[in-house]
């Protein structure tokens, strides 16, 4: 990987402001990398090289005039193709929307543009974000940079693969059951699912309204925090949006002495792990303890008892009902089958699961009176082979989906390698709006280890 492609957003930002590098240079380096790697990775559905070049020139001109638009100014990024982009095709990874060219931007896209970010295009994903492998029937499977015979996780698999391979510095993902954190873990990058409502979802094709989150994937914790700062903020166009004045995910980064930080290990989430995953995560937790954190196991009774909530499916079926009636042939067999099964869910199950969800959230809140961070594996297994994907792939979301129901922030940080030399992720969950705390712990872990500096060997 070239030097530019390994640079962090923080480092690139410093060099941009010191005039040691230009946005045009960063952008051209990334475009060259995209052109070289895309035949292997298929991380993009639509590339927007010329728009990127124009945006990079504008970013450089702004900086020359003393206009600084924030942490993503001049930085090449990518956007999950679930987010509406004005004048640029937005497919949601589907055939239903294959020809949709929105006349508006999603709020998160507006924030990127106003923040001076340079978008290289729209990133591949699992069809309608309803799946965890990004083996897209319509646009081809995304491939994992660590081993291109394997999937990158999903649904934000294009973002994970593009960030890990150095095609972009960071990118937008969405997370309804783990879709930011799963590809982050399986591609050895950082994925940050923010608190529900912190980042607007207006203009993003929904999967499940009460579970959907928008957030960044990047190569370091600091980069993910900077990225989040750039896209967070109240938006009246999203009914779930919340006001959080003065939010700063980076404010505790650098406090790498973790004395005083209490880490709760959710031990029930270490059952039924593939060999190598638990070992890597336990070693990571030992590192946190070595940095001064107090560590103890915690019990969350409903989670420990195998809680399974059926909320995502009925909400997804509600969104897709009209298209299932009118254009069912435009769905892949896989996604149509799961939507049809979801359409048959009973209302009483959905309602009672919402009640259980409240109970579960109360239990987690109670546990987090005594700990600041919950630690566990992000996924129970490393990325599997694309030609061996089966329905059971949904197990990748088994450890991530509970936190969509509580709405609290969770970050996945690379913490080693498991079977086949494939990446493993450590999940750190915090209290609502305490992104700064999980970013502090994640950053401290990064500084004590070198997993995040390893480069994919599959490309």
């Amino acid at each position: 990987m070239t030097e530019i492609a390994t640079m962090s957003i923080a480092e690139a930002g410093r060099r941009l402001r010191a005039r040691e590098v230009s946005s045009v240079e960063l952008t051209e380096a990334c475009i060259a990398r995209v052109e070289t790697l895309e035949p292997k990775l298929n991380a993009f559905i639509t590339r927007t090289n010329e728009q990127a070049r124009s945006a990079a020139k504008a970013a450089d001109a702004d900086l020359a005039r003393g206009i600084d638009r924030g942490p993503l100014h001049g930085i090449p990024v990518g956007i999950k193709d679930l987010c509406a982009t004005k004048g640029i095709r937005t497919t949601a990874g589907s055939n239903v929307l294959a020809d949709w060219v929105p006349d508006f931007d999603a709020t998160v896209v507006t924030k990127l543009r106003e923040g001076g970010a340079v978008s290289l295009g729209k990133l591949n994903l699992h069809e309608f974000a309803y799946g965890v492998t990004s083996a897209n029937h319509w646009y081809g499977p995304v491939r994992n940079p660590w081993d291109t015979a394997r999937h990158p996780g999903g649904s934000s698999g294009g973002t994970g693969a593009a960030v890990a391979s150095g095609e972009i510095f960071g990118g937008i993902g969405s997370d309804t059951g783990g879709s930011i954190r799963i590809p982050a873990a399986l591609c050895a990058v950082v994925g940050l699912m923010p608190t529900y409502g912190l980042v607007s979802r207006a203009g993003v094709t929904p999967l499940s309204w009460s579970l959907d989150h928008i957030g960044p994937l990047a190569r370091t914790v600091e980069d993910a925090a900077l990225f989040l700062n750039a896209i967070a903020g109240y938006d009246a166009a999203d009914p779930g949006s919340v006001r959080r004045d003065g939010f700063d995910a980076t404010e505790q980064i650098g406090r790498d002495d973790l004395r005083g930080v209490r880490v709760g290990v959710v031990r029930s989430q270490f059952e039924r792990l593939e060999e190598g995953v638990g070992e890597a995560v336990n070693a990571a937790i030992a590192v946190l303890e070595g940095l001064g954190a107090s560590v103890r196991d915690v019990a969350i009774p409903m989670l420990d008892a195998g809680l399974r909530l059926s909320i995502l499916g009925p909400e997804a079926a509600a969104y897709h009902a009209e298209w299932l009636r009118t254009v069912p042939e435009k769905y892949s067999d896989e996604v149509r089958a799961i939507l049809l099964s979801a359409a048959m869910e009973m209302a009483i199950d959905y309602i009672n699961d919402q009640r259980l969800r409240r109970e579960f959230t109360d239990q987690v809140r109670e546990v987090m009176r005594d700990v600041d961070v919950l630690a566990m594996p992000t996924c129970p297994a490393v990325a599997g082979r694309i030609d061996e994907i089966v329905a059971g792939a949904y197990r990748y979301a088994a450890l991530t989906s509970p936190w969509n129901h509580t709405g609290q922030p969770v970050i996945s940080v690379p913490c080693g390698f498991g079977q086949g030399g494939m990446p493993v992720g450590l999940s750190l969950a915090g209290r609502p709006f305490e992104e700064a705390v999980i970013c502090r712990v994640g950053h401290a872990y990064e500084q004590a280890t070198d997993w995040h500096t390893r480069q994919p060997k599959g490309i």
Partner: protein
Amino acid sequence: MTEIDAKETARILLGRAGITPSEEDLARAAAFVGPPSPRNPKLATEPQLMQSAGEWEERR
């Protein structure tokens, strides 16, 4: 439930949603039709759930 019953149930449930599945889709959907789900069996009968529902009402 027999396969035929499951298919008929799926046809009725999807029909209520205005969806007319192909025979192939109906067969797939029927696989998801069965006796009441054992999901969260311990939790659904926990007394605190009822208590919580009461608290929930109070919060409103």
